[in-house]
C-alpha cells in the first residue's frame, strides 16, 4: 500500500514542516517514506508545497501526478491540486482562507478553520499543526501518539513551543471529529 499526501500553501505557513513531521511519524512506524519539496526561487508569500510518500515497500518514483490526499492551506493550492487527488482520498482545506469547496464529490473533504482554532490554542502560527493533526485524525495514516511524539521531537530545540503545538494538535484532532 502506498499513500501520497500533498501539502500546499503560502511560503511561511509551515507547509514543509507539516510534511516533514508526517514523514518522520511514518518512518517511526516502520514505513518507507520520501519527502519531496518544491524548490525554486521561492519567497515568503509565494507558493510552497511538498509531497510525502508513505509505503510499505521501497518507494519507486518520487514524482507523483495524482496524490491520494491533499492538505490545502490557501485557495490557489486547492484550485491547483484538488482535481488531481485520487477518488476516495482526503482533502483537508483551510476554511480560514478558502471560501469555496473543492468541488469534488468523490473525496472525503474536511474543512477546518485552522487559523481561528490555532489562535484559540495560543497562536495563529500553529495553523499548520492544526491542519496536520486534523488530517492525520481523519486519514489514519499514522497513529496519533506517534504524531504527538514527532511534534515534541520537532520542537525539542525550542521546548517553550511544545505546549502550544500540542494544544494545537488536540484542537486539530477535535475539529476532525466534529465534522
Amino acid at each position, binding site marked *: 500500500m502506498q499513500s501520497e499526501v500533498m501539502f500546499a500553501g503560502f511560503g511561511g505557513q509551515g507547509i514543509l514542516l507539516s510534511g516533514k513531521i508526517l*514523514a518522520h511519524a511514518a*518512518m517511526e512506524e516502520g514505513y518507507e517514506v*520520501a519527502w*519531496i*519539496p518544491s*524548490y525554486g526561487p521561492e519567497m515568503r508569500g509565494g507558493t510552497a508545497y511538498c509531497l510525502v510518500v508513505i509505503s510499505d515497500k521501497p*518507494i519507486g518514483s518520487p*514524482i507523483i*501526478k495524482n496524490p491520494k490526499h491533499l492538505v490545502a492551506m490557501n485557495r490557489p493550492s486547492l484550485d491547483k491540486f484538488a482535481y488531481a487527488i485520487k477518488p476516495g482520498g482526503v482533502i483537508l482545506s483551510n476554511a480560514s482562507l478558502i471560501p469555496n469547496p473543492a468541488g469534488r464529490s468523490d473525496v472525503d473533504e474536511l474543512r477546518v478553520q485552522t487559523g481561528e482554532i490555532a489562535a484559540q490554542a495560543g497562536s495563529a502560527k500553529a495553523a499548520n499543526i492544526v491542519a496536520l493533526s486534523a488530517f492525520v485524525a481523519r486519514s489514519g495514516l499514522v497513529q496519533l501518539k506517534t504524531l504527538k511524539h514527532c511534534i515534541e521531537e520537532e520542537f525539542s530545540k525550542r521546548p517553550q513551543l511544545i505546549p502550544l503545538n500540542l494544544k494545537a494538535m488536540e484542537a486539530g484532532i477535535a475539529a476532525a471529529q466534529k465534522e
Partner: protein
Amino acid sequence: MSKVLMKGNEAIAEAAIRAGCLNYFAYPITPQSEVAEYLSWRMSEVDGVFLQGESEVAVGYMIFGAAGAGVRVFTTSSSPGISLMSEAISYLCGAQLPAVFVNIMRGGPGLGGILPSQADYFQATKGIGHGDCRLLVMAPASVQEVVEMVMTAFPLAEKYRNPVMILGDGLIGQMMEPVEFPDHLKSEPTNKDAWASNGIDFRKGSKRNLVRSLFLDPEKLNDNNLELRAKYERMKREEVRFEAYNTQGEYSVLIVSYGTMSRVCKTAIETLKAEGIEVGLIRPQTLFPYPEIAVREAARKSSCRAVLCIEMSMGQMVEDVERCVQGARPVQWYGKCGGDVPTPEEIIDLVKRTLSPM
C-alpha cells in the same frame, strides 16, 4: 545507529565527515547549498576545516592543495560550478591526487535552471577536463545510496590516486528519506606516503614527493598518461557496479536508466507487470566505468525486442547504451531536461508504443 530522516544534501555532508573527511571547500549554488550550510556548523564540531572560496575556480585549487598535502578533501557543487572546477580536476588527474567531487546536477546549458537534471553525463564521464583525464563516476538513486557512495568514494579516490565524482540530480539533494549511517569510518589515507608533499619527517624513507602535472619531456608525459590509462583500465575491471531489476525472467523491453530517473522507471515496470507486460531494467551505479557487459547481455536476451534509454537529458547516456548493444537490438532514447522529470505514466505509454506493431 537508528534511521534518521534527512535531506540528501545534509546526508552527503554527514557521510563525508563519517568517512573521515575533515576538509571541505565550496562555493554555494542551488540545488546543493544545504551541504555548505550543514558543514558550516558541523565541521567546527569535529575540528574540521570549512572554507567558502571566492569562486569555484579557487575552490578547485584549494582541493588541489589539500589533496597534495595528503588529507581527505571534498567539495560539492552543481553543474555551472563544476564547469569552473574542471581545470583543477584535470590537474588533480595529472598529478595523481585523490579528492571527491559531488555534482548535484541542475538543468543547462549555461545558467540553465535550478531543477533536477542529468545533463552533465557527458561532462562527468567523457569530458571533465582537458587532457587524457577521467573520473570514477558514481550515480546514486536514493539518500541512503548517496551516503554509501560518499563513504566509499574516499577510499576509492585513494586507491586510484584519482578524483571520484558522485553524480546526483537535484532531487537526490533536495529529497528527505530515512537514512542509516554505517559506523564511523574515520580514517586517514593509508597510502599517502606515496604522494603527500608534507610530513617527510614522519614518513618511511625520505623520498621527496612532488605534486606536478607538468612533464615537458614527451616520453615522460607519455609514461604518465600510460600510467593513468592503466588505472582507468583497472577501474573497468574492478569497480563496475549496477543493479539489475526484473531481469531474471523473460522481458520484451529493456530499460537502461540511472539515478532518480531509474526509480520512476521501476514504478512504471511494476504497473506494466500487473498488466502482463514484462520490462527489465539495468541501473548503472557507476557511470564510469560503465556496466558494458551487463547492458550488452541484458539487451541480447532472446525475449528482448527493444532497448530504451531513459534519462533527464537530451540523449547522452544513450550513446553508451548503443555502444554496448552494438546494433543487436534497436535502441531508443527518451528524456526531458529542464526540471520536469518524466512520470511513470509517460514511460508506460512509451513502452506500449514501442511494443505496438508498426
